[in-house]
């Protein structure tokens, strides 16, 4: 990694690492009686390791000018590996939490292993660790190819990637220590949030600088989605985390907002995290990797632009549907509900666009599990956006809110859409990034696909059942006008579904581990494919199907 940096960049890297290490030491000193102190030490130790890493490669020969003739893929490679590592951790903790619902004794009487601490470890590790790293890695890859421009320098993309992982690490280790500001998907405290602002703004600048150097006049639509993801996540993150720390030596802070404003700001953030982190960025992935793997151009480029602006305009207003029947003004609830229903139009337009792109390539979907991952992702995207619009309708929400139906919905989106498109894209990108002809084992990709699909279906159906039963039990009255069931009655009724859910999650986890092994083996042992020039991107193994030229767009002027 260090060998790719110029001498000046190595020096800047050292300065950054030493500054951040000093900062860590200051936090450790100021917060010696507070959980934040542990984080100070963690930051310092990691930066010192970084300093040694840079020094060990400091005198290696500088990269030649020839590097400018190729794309800079080191951050993407590191990002993919980190993404899979976070997936393994996040899915494992997720399944642990699922078994905790079956048997609460699985906390082993340890505070750090309590449900309230493990659950955000799961959500952060899968959303930000797995999803975020995959987004950063693929965004660098796609941006360079579609702009025909190399990243502007070697250091800043690495800073973004590693800085982002430091944030994830602070977040996850903080929860175990009991540090949280208890806002969903925004649990990390003020100092980690400030660090993420620095990292994220750098990310945005790297993206803009690459864009400014582009040789293609038109910006390909995938980049619009990636840009929206980066820009809006910055906005959301900054506003929702406006808070005042108790002191510089304390992890605790108080939000700038209170009462219903706090709730509205949080769910404006929370739903747009779904929109711009878990949707826009992954649609960027879809719009590049699906056409590329299928060997066909997008069904309708125009439709992809219309759905882009539709999603961008409409999602912003949908967050209040999380606060139906609360102190939030009725009209704001209605606004959120209406926009959520309208969102179905651009969402289905995207899903349909993806599926129609596959027309003429369905034989590939049949034969190629990687493309099938992407196809199933588009189907689940369509399914879960329909479900989301439906659940945002106030009377439907009266039944679904606070029940497992919500959990089922989130996982239809997270497992069925986000994880499937990510795994599909990763299986496509790994041979390209490491210049291999194909994955180590196509059969293992197939195994992963079926485990993931089976796990998702078992999970989602279990949660639909338990959610609706819960909702109905909580609103059933006896003839004397009292509630017919206690909360514990409903909890007992849930047990079989919780077991089913945990089994579904286990299948998904095993699939993820199979993926990790396959990717590792591809990197480590597969023979080198044909090296660069002419046709550098090896086609999918299916390119050999007779009568099907690999990529033959009809009209290019």
């Amino acid at each position, binding site marked *: 990694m260090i060998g790719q940096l110029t001498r000046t960049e190595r020096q800047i890297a050292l300065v950054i690492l030493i500054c951040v290490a000093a900062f860590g030491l200051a936090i450790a000193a100021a917060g010696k009686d507070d959980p934040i102190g542990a984080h100070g030490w963690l930051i310092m130790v990691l930066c010192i390791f970084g300093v040694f890493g840079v020094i060990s490669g400091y005198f290696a020969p500088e990269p030649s000018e020839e590097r*400018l*003739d*190729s*794309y800079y893929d080191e951050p993407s490679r590191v990002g993919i590996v980190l993404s899979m590592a976070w997936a393994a951790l996040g899915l494992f903790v997720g399944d642990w939490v699922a078994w905790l619902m079956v048997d609460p004794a699985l906390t082993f009487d340890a505070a750090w292993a309590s449900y309230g601490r493990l659950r955000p470890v799961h959500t952060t590790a899968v959303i930000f660790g797995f999803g975020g790293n995959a987004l950063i890695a693929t965004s660098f890859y796609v941006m*360079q*190819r*579609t702009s*025909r*421009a*190399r990243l502007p320098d070697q250091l800043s993309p690495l800073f973004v990637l590693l800085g982002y992982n430091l944030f994830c690490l602070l977040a996850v280790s903080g929860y175990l220590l009991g540090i949280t500001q208890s806002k969903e998907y925004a649990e990390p405290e003020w100092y980690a949030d400030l660090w993420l602002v620095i990292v994220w703004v750098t990310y945005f600048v790297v993206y803009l600088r690459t864009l400014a150097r582009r*040789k*293609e*006049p*038109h910006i*390909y*639509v995938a980049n619009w989605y990636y840009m929206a993801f980066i820009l809006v996540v910055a906005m959301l993150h900054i506003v929702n985390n406006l808070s005042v720390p108790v002191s510089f030596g304390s992890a605790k802070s108080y939000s700038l907002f209170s009462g219903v404003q706090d709730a509205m700001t949080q769910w404006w953030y929370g739903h747009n995290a779904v929109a711009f982190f878990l949707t826009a960025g992954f649609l960027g992935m879809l719009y*590049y990797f699906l*056409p*590329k793997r299928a*060997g*066909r*151009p*997008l069904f309708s*480029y*125009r439709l992809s*632009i*219309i759905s882009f*602006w539709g999603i961008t*305009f409409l999602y912003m207003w949908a967050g209040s549907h999380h606060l139906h029947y609360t102190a939030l003004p009725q*009209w704001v609830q209605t606004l959120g509900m209406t926009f959520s229903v309208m969102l179905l139009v651009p969402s289905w337009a995207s899903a349909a666009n993806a599926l129609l792109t596959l027309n003429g390539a369905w034989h590939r979907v049949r034969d190629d599990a990687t493309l099938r991952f992407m196809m199933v992702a588009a189907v689940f995207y369509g399914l879960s956006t329909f479900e989301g619009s439906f659940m945002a309708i106030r009377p439907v929400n009266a039944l679904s809110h606070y029940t497992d139906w919500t959990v089922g919905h989130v996982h239809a989106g997270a497992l069925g859409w986000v994880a499937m498109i990510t795994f599909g894209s990763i299986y496509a990108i790994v041979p390209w990034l490491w210049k291999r002809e194909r994955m180590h084992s196509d059969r293992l990709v197939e195994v992963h696909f079926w485990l993931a699909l089976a796990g998702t279906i078992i999970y989602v159906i279990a949660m639909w059942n338990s959610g609706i039963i819960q909702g109905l039990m909580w609103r059933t009255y006896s003839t004397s006008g009292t509630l017919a069931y206690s909360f514990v009655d409903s909890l007992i009724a849930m047990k079989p579904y919780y077991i089913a859910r945990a089994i579904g999650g286990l299948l998904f986890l095993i699939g993820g581990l199979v993926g990790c092994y396959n990717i590792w083996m591809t990197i480590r042992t597969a023979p080198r494919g044909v090296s*660069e020039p002419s*046709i*550098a*991107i090896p086609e999918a193994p299916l390119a050999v199907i007779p009568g099907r030229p690999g*990529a033959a*767009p009809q*009209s*290019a*002027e």
Partner: protein
Amino acid sequence: MGVTYDEVVWFSKTFGLFYLIGFSALVLVYVYWPSNKATFERAAAAILHDEDKPCR
């Protein structure tokens, strides 16, 4: 201060509606502008070309 809740609500219920409609109209005009068709088709096809080098 001077800005009341009612004023903010009035603003968002009027301006908010029209700028959204106006913006949507602009997007549709851009998307269906005849001379943009070629650009879009070229962009959609361009990613399929197997080049793997930046343009210098």
